[in-house]
């Protein structure tokens, strides 16, 4: 994949805990092209956020990136020094978090914070930076951006704070934005506004690619072109959004689709839970980590971990059911 914007190969991220080593990301590989929107979907503890933080090199001890490569615009992010990463973060790859308060400093006005970021990465003077930030605040739908430039984070509502965060992420026109549950803390009517904003910005911006990390299949379905489904640190399935929704292959994805109550189905449509609980990331099951919850598990699933294999039409699944060899 030479034309990929970001190519992640065999990424391993682990954390030392009192109980033992927690492998949060266990050999994850995927790529994303310029301007593409890729969904990383899974339940809590599946490693989707740790994957995003690894790409940004935000993993701090007791965590470490223990293996693999992350080639972004031809350069391996894993090989970069701290100083080199500072040049990448915010400018070429930006991140949007679920909780806006983790990004904005509560004691400074928002406009100045974004302007500071802008000036750190460009040669712009104070006036030019302020003008650019005001343009950006207007672009994300902040009313009266000139006045709001000097407002403090707490003077914004939750939805408006998230708009400020998006302005902050896009002000340097990065090639890649990693959005980690960007609307999870918002009410649905506000979520819809933010999703609409992200869609509009992505179309108008210069080919910004987005990795959308979410537990919400609905959000992913409406926003993404391709989806990676994660379970217990592994990507278990990759396909176009349509294929994931209409023809899921991996038993976990199938189970997930059947376990969510849906508005587009009849009131009487049954919801079928996946039995059991999510795998313990410190002492994961042998073989395929999903096998204790899988109705199709056979001998090989207990002993051998399946790898992602092509099942046709760019669809890939990590499941022995689809492995012909």
């Amino acid at each position, binding site marked *: 994949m030479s034309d990929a914007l970001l190519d992640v190969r065999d990424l391993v991220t682990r954390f030392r805990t009192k109980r033992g080593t927690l492998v949060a990301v266990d050999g994850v590989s995927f790529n994303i092209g310029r301007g593409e929107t890729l969904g990383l979907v899974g*339940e*809590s503890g599946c490693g989707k956020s740790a994957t995003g933080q690894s790409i940004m090199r935000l993993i701090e001890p007791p965590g470490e990136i223990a293996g693999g490569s992350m080639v972004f615009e031809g350069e391996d992010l894993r090989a970069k020094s701290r100083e080199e990463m500072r040049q990448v973060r915010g400018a070429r790859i930006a991140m949007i978090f679920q909780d806006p308060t983790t990004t904005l400093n509560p004691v400074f006005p928002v406009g100045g914070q974004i302007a500071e970021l802008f000036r750190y990465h460009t040669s712009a003077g104070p006036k030019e930076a302020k003008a650019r930030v005001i343009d950006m605040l207007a672009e994300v739908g902040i009313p009266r951006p000139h006045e709001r430039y000097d407002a403090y984070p707490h003077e914004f*509502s*939750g*939805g*408006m704070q998230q708009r400020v965060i998006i302005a902050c992420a896009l002000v340097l026109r990065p090639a890649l934005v990693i959005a980690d549950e960007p609307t999870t803390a918002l*009410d*649905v*009517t*506000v*979520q*819809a*506004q933010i*999703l*609409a904003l992200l*869609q509009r910005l992505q179309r108008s911006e210069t080919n910004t690619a987005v990795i959308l990390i979410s*537990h*919400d*299949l*609905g*959000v*992913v*379905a*409406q*926003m993404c072109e391709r989806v990676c489904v994660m379970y217990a640190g592994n990507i278990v399935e990759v396909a176009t*959004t*349509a294929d994931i*929704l*209409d023809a899921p292959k991996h038993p976990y994805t199938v*189970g*997930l*689709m059947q*376990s*969510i*109550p*849906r*508005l*587009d189905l009849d*009131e009487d449509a049954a*919801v*079928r*839970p*996946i*039995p059991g*609980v*999510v795998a313990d990331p410190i002492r994961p099951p042998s073989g395929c980590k999903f096998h204790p919850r899988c109705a199709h598990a056979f001998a090989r699933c207990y002993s051998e971990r399946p790898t992602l294999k092509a099942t046709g039409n760019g669809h890939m699944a990590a499941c022995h059911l689809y492995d012909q060899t």
Partner: protein
Amino acid sequence: MNDTVQTTAVRPTLEVRHLIKHFAVRQDVFASLLREPLKVHAVDDVSFTVGREETFGLVGESGSGKSTIGKLIARLIEPTGGTMLLDGEDWLALRGAALRRARRNVQMIFQNPYASLDPRWTVESIVAEPLSTHKVVPRGDVHGRVAELLRAVGLEPSHAQRFPHQFSGGQRQRIGLARALALNPRLLIADEPVSALDVSVQAQILNLIQDIQERYHLSLLFISHDLSVVKYVCDRVAVMYLGRVVEVAGTRALFRRPLHPYTQALLAAIPEPTTKRRRIFAAIEGEIPSPIHPPSGCRFHPRCARARALCALETPEFRELAPGHWAACHYAEA
């Protein structure tokens, strides 16, 4: 609002009439001398009924007042006004010892199964506590009754000696449910019971709640922000916005043909896991206004695409637009 939203031969388990709850806002001394004390209009003139063995849903976004209503019905807080009848009896008139005795009839489970269970207690003591407090089974039978309750919620009697931290979120919600069931309540209030759970586990708990409701002949008040969950579980639904009920209908009618503009907007805003209805979100403008200074007239009017002059002036009456289908909108038509 009409007092008899539902007319049935059997008396409903719960009748809520003109319920009001205002919270005082803390202010400094000078401000409180100079102007009228500020208050949060958390619940403003809400009426509905929960029928026998019915699952009634209360749905709304944050600040809608749905959780406050749950707490009012459980008598965890006292209302500013209104009445509530439980099995036809004045539930708010009970005080002191009479209230303590009657509390067994209304039990509640909460969103966060991590916070609602005492971490220092074993599962056995958590589930047994209401049994001994209310002296509903002889002391010698408590152990057996706990085992029976644990089995009913899908846990093993051998789990009784463990502590809450040894369980997953879904299992903790099962423990909370066993405790709530211990006293054979007439009404169970479930406040966002699956919101903190992972999606694959959510369904286990939803199916369990439905199953328990049937087996124990419970009336259930199901409070949630998640419309797809409400659609799956509830028989009838009330949609709340900023302290008021804007629409009440049978689940099928509400989701097939929502009549209030807010309900319509809410349903249109939900991203669905399907490629058949992929769209650019038809987002409604603005955010939920402050419940301290709610908008005049219809509280939804500043965000409503169909609002006219009247909507800012007059609070819309609750009207029955189709049999059993009520909406509080000046211009809604069936």
